[in-house]
């Protein structure tokens, strides 16, 4: 499978993402500079983490106007699979491809630490084949990861089974303490109605090799490129 990794000025997880897809999972990977509008035959698109345009205005706010994003949107509308990680999640929200917005973390701190997330939906582009309730350890690194959804969006997403991941403790229990950034209903990842666009704040690409302390994130990236 050919995986296109979008690169904005300020993306900083693009090479980590490429490494995992190419060297750990054996896929063909190409970088798509934000000024390109040709996805060059990509079968799947990843919007990686980082600080696109320095986050100066708002996270993801400027990136959504890049030429590549119009192509990504059209690709997703045709059912193409898209994965947003961290800043990629924020960009997909700003682009109107996923609901909600990210507020500053509830403790106002940049959080760089290991968290546990629980798989809540197993019929999405990034979780098919996984076990519902499966718990994975991986890092987060963000200042604005406090997911805000209004009551109506939250009810709709929950009713449609589009909550993909929740923050939990090591045993899989969703607790207020485990929800470190204060996200609504402890939600760490959601998908669109077509279930082909999935995004999460934690970094599976930083937890895909045992030498990094966890290789559980690899399951998500493997599922994303599985046929």
């Amino acid at each position, binding site marked *: 499978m050919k995986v296109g990794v979008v690169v904005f000025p300020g993306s900083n997880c693009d090479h980590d993402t490429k490494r995992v897809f190419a060297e750990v999972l054996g896929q063909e990977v190409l970088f798509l500079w934000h000024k390109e509008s040709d996805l060059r035959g990509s079968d799947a698109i990843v919007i990686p983490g980082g600080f696109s345009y320095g986050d100066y*205005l*708002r996270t993801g*706010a*400027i990136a959504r*106007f890049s030429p590549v994003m119009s192509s990504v949107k059209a690709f997703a509308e045709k059912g193409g699979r898209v994965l947003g990680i961290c800043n990629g999640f924020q960009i997909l*929200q*700003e682009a109107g491809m996923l*609901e*909600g*917005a990210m*507020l*500053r*973390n*509830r*403790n*106002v701190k940049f959080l760089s630490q290991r968290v546990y997330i629980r798989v809540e939906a197993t019929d999405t582009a990034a979780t098919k084949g996984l076990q519902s309730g499966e718990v994975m350890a991986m890092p987060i690194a963000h200042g604005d990861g*406090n997911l*805000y959804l*209004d009551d109506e969006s939250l009810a709709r997403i929950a009713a449609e089974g589009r909550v993909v991941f929740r923050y939990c403790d090591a045993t899989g229990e969703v607790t207020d303490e485990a929800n470190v950034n*204060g996200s609504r209903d402890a939600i760490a990842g959601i998908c669109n109605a077509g279930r082909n666009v999935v995004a999460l704040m934690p970094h599976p690409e930083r937890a895909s090799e045992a030498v990094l302390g966890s290789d559980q994130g690899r399951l998500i990236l493997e599922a994303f490129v599985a046929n």
Partner: protein
Amino acid sequence: MIQLRVLVSLKTSVFDPQGQTTLAALQGLGYKAATDLRQGKSFLLTFDGITEEEARSQAEEMARKVLSNPVIESFKVERVV
């Protein structure tokens, strides 16, 4: 020359972690009568060669499309100069 200020703030229904942290600090400094604080952003835009009406229309479009996120924020535009 026309100067317009675009004020962007979180909607009242949205929790403001920065505002609450700053409020707690101010109360700690003795400003006990301060009961709420909402933090926001201010953008001072300068226009030349267009009417006030055109400038306002452009500023509102910028605020709606770029400067604010309508999911969590609201804005207002006011004339400064």
